[in-house]
């Protein structure tokens, strides 16, 4: 096994280690336990609803650590600009699961910066408009695309109020085993579904944020860190007027 894998495990351990520090006897003992995170053997259920809370007060203008980590985790950094393409157009259209967005309050002039990704709606407009059933919401709240069924019509991209979806325009040479993708399909943030199904507790973006602005967890578990945080302080649903009951919530806007 390569050093890289071990390194990754170790990083994961250090994050999980914070929560479980009290029970750790020695670093080695805990490492062993974490390495045994089990792949899921039973179907996901609605007992769990995954979501995120993003504290925009902590989000730093100009920082793109979450975007970079997301792209690395999900193989988006392996996409290359097609030869002869217009760099501006490429930048506008290249697949992205997270975008850094700035919002400005017209009255006060206050500028807020935040990561924008699939909001994992309870009532996803992308699913409503999908003619094939490729856009779907998994029982545990993850909204995603079954690319075996996607025909690339892109209705979902137009229906999404958050501009969270991307289209793969070109054939792709290099891909990761955990993140297959190919020309002609739509995709978006899936809350690192391969991590979910492997019993890991974080997303790549959460791990990457040095400010701790991103909190991932189970919205249905009243004792989870995210549920407690949501109860403690005000949070906002983006475009709450649409009544989509988003699984991603924001603080400070």
């Amino acid at each position, binding site marked *: *096994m*390569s050093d890289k*894998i071990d390194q990754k495990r170790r990083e994961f351990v250090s994050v999980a280690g914070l929560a479980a520090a009290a029970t750790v006897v020695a670093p080695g003992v805990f490492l062993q336990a974490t*390495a045994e*995170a089990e*792949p*899921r*053997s*039973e*179907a*996901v259920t609605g007992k769990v609803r995954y979501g995120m809370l993003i504290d925009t007060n902590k989000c730093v203008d100009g920082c793109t650590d979450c975007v970079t980590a997301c792209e690395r985790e999900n193989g988006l950094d392996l996409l290359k600009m097609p030869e002869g393409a217009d760099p501006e157009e490429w930048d506008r259209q290249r697949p992205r699961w997270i975008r850094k967005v700035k919002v400005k309050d017209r009255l006060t002039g206050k500028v807020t910066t935040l990561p924008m990704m699939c909001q994992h709606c309870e009532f996803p407009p992308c699913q409503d408009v999908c003619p094939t059933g490729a856009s*779907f919401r*998994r*029982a*545990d709240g993850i909204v995603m695309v*079954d*690319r*075996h069924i996607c025909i690339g019509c892109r209705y979902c991209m137009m229906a999404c109020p958050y501009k969270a979806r991307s289209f793969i325009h070109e*054939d*792709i040479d290099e*891909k*990761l*085993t*955990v993140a*297959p*993708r*190919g*020309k002609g*399909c739509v995709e978006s943030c899936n809350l690192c*579904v391969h991590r*979910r*199904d*492997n019993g890991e507790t974080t997303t790549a973006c959460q791990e990457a944020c040095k400010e701790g602005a991103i909190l991932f967890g189970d919205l249905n578990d009243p004792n989870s860190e995210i549920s407690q945080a949501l109860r403690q302080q005000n949070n906002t649903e983006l475009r709450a007027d649409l009544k989509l009951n988003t699984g991603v919530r924001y603080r400070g806007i």
Partner: protein
Amino acid sequence: MQDMFRFGTRLLVAATALLLVQTASAAQGSRSVIEGSKAYGLDSCVEPTPLMRKKHYAFLKHDRDITVHQGIRTVKHSLAGCVDCHAAKDDTGKYVPVTDEGQFCQSCHEYAGVELPCFSCHSATPTQATKAGD
């Protein structure tokens, strides 16, 4: 080739015999698993070999939906699993794509006239150690 397969499904004994002949001719050897792959060091596939020859695509499609929609990752017939076990390493220790000329999935499909759309999206080499602890 298709006819051979259809005929084979009628008589199990005949089918096995036919397929054995076919594979032997396709892979110029008694075993079609590729030297340098994990499969090369193992005795059997995830199902008995005659069944794999006949049904692997049906297994794959069945388990694909279970994984993608229900999140179950312990299925027997995972595409990542086939690639992990059947992809061979070359002399320099680098994985050769299973879709390359003469490699496990390619050589038989070439012979049978099958074109796979799968690897336009799926990686044809293992890009990470599977978490099974190997």
